[in-house]
């Protein structure tokens, strides 16, 4: 129906809808798209406007520290503000558009992976993944697999018994980093529907519960210009990201002192991120690298523009089980051999090429980075810093991003396993010159915030139930990667959208809007 700037409303306005979506990022927008044109009156409350604004972005500022065994702590205070975007479209505005589903193993309970197992299987998610792919106008994973059918882009001949495989990634144009005009349409067109209203510059600062604390009664809404409003509805969906979801739940402590949905002290715990590990080579030291013994082009794996469909090399469930490791991928990229090829490297590559079957061109040297699943860890958490508040009076966040020994063990077992699989198949050799004590320093963080309101049927083990409803709160749901019990390796957006499709179906049924 409309976009409304909340600053233009009379002070103390009362916003009403059947469904209130807190956050106009990709999760909130996708939910609204699913409900557009239906019977439910839907309102989105978005903190930002249509363009990035540094004053609004400053509301995200907080503190962060990354900790890991055998490594010095890594201060990361810029991360809370720089790893997300507080604007209509959310972090989709700065997203590169890379899409991949989580692997079947990511959904499974893996005895060797602590706290693993989703209350939904990949098979049950397939239809929702397909719908998410259709929305983003990319091929359907596992159904189309067009990338792996291209005869001009042959995969490495890894042995299936070794458990590593080529996993495709695709790119949508519907991201701010890919096609701004297309993304502008994506983040606004749904509001043409008569049942949708989007309120911009509308910051939700409090989720208000009824006196018994089991229902949301309303929301406090604040504008940076000083206006204050309220919003109320039948049902509420919290969709402001993996860090901010926590902030709002914990800060909403008017009835439950520990915050909403936090009866078992789980909100904010189990923060998981994605990081890449790699080093460059120089005259003295090797780079993280893959020698490929074949001369055939490696276009299936290379992504020179960072926007091309490509594959990564990934470990499947059997390999993970054998290695006692989590998910793991190696991403290849073109390397400048002149800068990193040492005499020893050249010699061992020549011998490896011969032993692998010989090629006239001597094979190829490629750079690579590794990604390794960050296991859920209760000490990896987002908390509130009561001593620091933003201009709206909201406590700022403190992120303690924590790795355990099992994370490093998993990474190192996986790098070894990958090198063994590559060599055993006669496809090449792997170089991993990185010591455990270097890992944190050479890691590079993605903007993926997962696990902080994890999904589990047991209220003692999860913040939301399998329908994404907050345990103990009858009309509040959470959308976004904060509900992921485990993080896998894949970029989370496609899974976020697939879960939102699933939530939309549930809400339609729950609210009688499917009839």
């Amino acid at each position, binding site marked *: 129906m409309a976009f409304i700037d909340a600053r233009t409303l009379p002070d103390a306005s009362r916003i009403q809808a059947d469904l209130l979506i807190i956050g106009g990022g990709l999760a909130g927008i996708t939910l609204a798209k699913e409900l557009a044109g239906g019977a439910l009156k839907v309102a989105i409350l978005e903190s930002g406007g249509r363009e990035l604004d540094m004053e609004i972005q400053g509301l995200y500022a907080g503190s962060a520290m990354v900790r890991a065994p055998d490594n010095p702590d890594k201060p990361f205070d810029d991360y809370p503000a720089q790893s997300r975007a507080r604007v209509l479209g959310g972090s989709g505005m700065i997203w590169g558009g890379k899409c991949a589903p989580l692997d079947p193993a990511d959904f499974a309970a893996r005895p060797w992976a602590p706290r693993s197992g989703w209350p939904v299987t990949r098979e049950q998610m397939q239809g929702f993944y397909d719908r998410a792919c259709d929305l983003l106008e990319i091929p359907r994973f596992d159904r189309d697999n067009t990338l792996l059918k291209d005869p001009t882009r042959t995969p490495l001949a890894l042995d299936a018994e*070794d458990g590593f495989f080529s996993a495709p990634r695709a790119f949508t144009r519907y991201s701010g980093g890919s096609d701004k005009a297309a993304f502008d349409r994506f983040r606004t067109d749904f509001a043409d529907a008569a049942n949708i209203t989007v309120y911009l510059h509308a910051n939700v600062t409090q989720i208000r519960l009824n006196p018994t604390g089991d229902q949301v009664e309303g929301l406090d809404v604040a504008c940076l210009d000083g206006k204050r409003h309220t919003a109320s509805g039948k049902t509420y969906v919290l969709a402001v990201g993996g860090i901010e979801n926590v902030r709002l739940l914990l800060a909403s402590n008017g009835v439950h002192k520990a915050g909403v949905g936090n009866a078992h002290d789980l909100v904010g715990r189990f923060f998981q991120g994605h990081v890449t590990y790699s080093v460059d080579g120089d005259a003295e*030291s*090797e780079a*993280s690298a893959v*020698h490929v013994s074949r001369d055939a082009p490696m276009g299936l794996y290379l992504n020179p523009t960072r926007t091309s469909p490509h594959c990564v090399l990934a470990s499947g469930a059997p390999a993970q089980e054998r290695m006692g490791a989590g998910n793991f991928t190696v991403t290849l990229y073109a390397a400048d051999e002149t800068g990193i090829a*040492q*005499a*020893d*490297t*050249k*010699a*061992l590559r*020549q*011998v*490896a*090429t*011969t*032993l*692998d*079957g*010989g*090629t*006239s061109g*001597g094979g190829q040297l490629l750079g690579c980075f590794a990604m390794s699943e960050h296991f859920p860890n209760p000490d990896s958490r987002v908390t509130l810093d009561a001593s620091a508040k933003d201009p709206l009076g909201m406590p700022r966040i403190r992120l303690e991003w924590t790795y355990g020994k099992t994370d490093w063990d998993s990474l190192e077992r996986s790098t*070894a396993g990958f*090198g*063994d*699989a590559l*060599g*055993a*198949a*006669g496809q090449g*050799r*792997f*170089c*991993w*010159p*990185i010591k455990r004590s270097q890992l944190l320093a050479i890691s590079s963080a993605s903007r993926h915030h997962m696990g902080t309101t994890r999904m589990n049927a047991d209220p003692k083990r999860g913040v939301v139930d399998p329908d994404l409803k907050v345990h103990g709160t009858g009309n509040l749901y959470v959308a976004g990667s904060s509900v992921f019990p485990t993080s896998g390796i894949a970029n989370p957006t496609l899974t976020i959208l697939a879960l939102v499709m699933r939530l939309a179906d549930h809400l339609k049924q729950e609210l009688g809007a499917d009839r």
Partner: protein
Amino acid sequence: MTALARRDLLAALFVVTASAGLPSLAAAVPSNPKARLFGDLDLTAAARVGEAWLAGRAPTTVTALAARLFPRGREPEALSALRRAVADDFRRGAVFVHRGWRLSDTEGALFGLLALEAR
């Protein structure tokens, strides 16, 4: 092993490679077998890799390594056997890591043999 024997070994490896019908190597003619087998292999660098493999292992000899790597002599099947040994090594975790490169123990032994010959 004498220098002549070393050339014999490399030449033999070339012959078995050619016999295996591998496309790129089979077409080559070994005017310099050593160079043709491993391209322009830098024997100094190869020996350095080999010395790293030898370090920390029980002392061995050219004879012992040659017997391990070529138990049936330098027959046409030798390179195929080496390839199988490399795959087996990787699958049972018998590896040698040099400057971060993860190599099979068999490859390490090959470099070790070259290093011993170069001493």
